C-alpha cells in the first residue's frame, strides 16, 4: 500500500465519527456533510502539517471544529436551522419513542452555546479524553470540564430535569418524553 493510500484509509475510517460530530454540532445533515468534505480537502492539502504517530482522528476533528467555528461566526446573525434535515438521520430508528426522545434532545442541544455543545459532544459521545478535547478546542482542560458540566446542567434545565437526586431512574426519560407530548 502506498503512503498516500494509507492516509486515505485513515481518513476514510474517521469519516463516520466526523459526520456524527458535524451533525451534532450543526444540527443539519447537509451542512454537516459540507463541513466534512471541506475538512477532508483541507486535511489532504495540509497533510504535511500532520505529525505522524499522533492521533489522526483528533487532528481531523480539530480542523472540522475550527471550520465550524469560523462559519458560525459568519452565520451568527442568520436564523439557525436546528432541526431541518436532522430528521433524515433518524430514519434508521424504528422506535417511535426514540425519535421523540432524540428530537427533543436535538432541540435542547442546539440551544447550548457552541463552546459547551462541542465540549459535551467530544467528551460525551466522540470518546475523547478531557485532555484531547482541550487540545481540539485549544483551551485548558479545566475549561473543558466546566463547559461539560454547564452543558449537562443546561440540558437538564431545557429537558425539564430537576437535577435533584430524589428522582427515580426513569425521571430523565419521562421528562423528555412528556416534554414531547405537552399540550
Amino acid at each position: 500500500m502506498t503512503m498516500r493510500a494509507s492516509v486515505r484509509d485513515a481518513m476514510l475510517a474517521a469519516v463516520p465519527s466526523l459526520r456524527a460530530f458535524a451533525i451534532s454540532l450543526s444540527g443539519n445533515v447537509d451542512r454537516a456533510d459540507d463541513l466534512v468534505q471541506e475538512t477532508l480537502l483541507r486535511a489532504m492539502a495540509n497533510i504535511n502539517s500532520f505529525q505522524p504517530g499522533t492521533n489522526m482522528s483528533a487532528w481531523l476533528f480539530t480542523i472540522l471544529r475550527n471550520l465550524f467555528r469560523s462559519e458560525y461566526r459568519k452565520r451568527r446573525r442568520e436564523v439557525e436551522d436546528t432541526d431541518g434535515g436532522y430528521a433524515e438521520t433518524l430514519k434508521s430508528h424504528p422506535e417511535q419513542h426514540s425519535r421523540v426522545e432524540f428530537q427533543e434532545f436535538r432541540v435542547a442541544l442546539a440551544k447550548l452555546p457552541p463552546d459547551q455543545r462541542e465540549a459535551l459532544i467530544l467528551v460525551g459521545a466522540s470518546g475523547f479524553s478531557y485532555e484531547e478535547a482541550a487540545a481540539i478546542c485549544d483551551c485548558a482542560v479545566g475549561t473543558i470540564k466546566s463547559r461539560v458540566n454547564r452543558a449537562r446542567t443546561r440540558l437538564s434545565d431545557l429537558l425539564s430535569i430537576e437535577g435533584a437526586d430524589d428522582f427515580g431512574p426513569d425521571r430523565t426519560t419521562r421528562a423528555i418524553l412528556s416534554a414531547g407530548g405537552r399540550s
Partner: protein
Amino acid sequence: MQTDAPPRKTGGRLSREDQRRLGDILQRMYDDVLHQGVPDRFRDLLNELEGEGERTKSIPAAPQEEGASGSDSDHLMGTKGFDSPNIKGPH
C-alpha cells in the same frame, strides 16, 4: 450578593443517574450516525484525492528522482504508518 438565584443551588450537579441518562441519549444519537458508515461522496472524494497524489508521484521521468519524491512521503509518514490503533473507529 445574589440576584435572581435559581431555585436549585448554583452549579447544581446532576445526579449520576441523570448524567448517565443524558449521556446515553447523546451517545445513541451519535452512534446512529456512526452506523450509517461512509457515504459514497466521501469515498469518491478520498479516492480522487489519493489518485491525484499517485499521478503526481508517478510523473518524475528519471528513476533517480524517485528518491527525491520519496522523501516527501517519508516526511509525511515518518517511520510509522497511519493505520495505527490511535485512530478511533466507530464504537
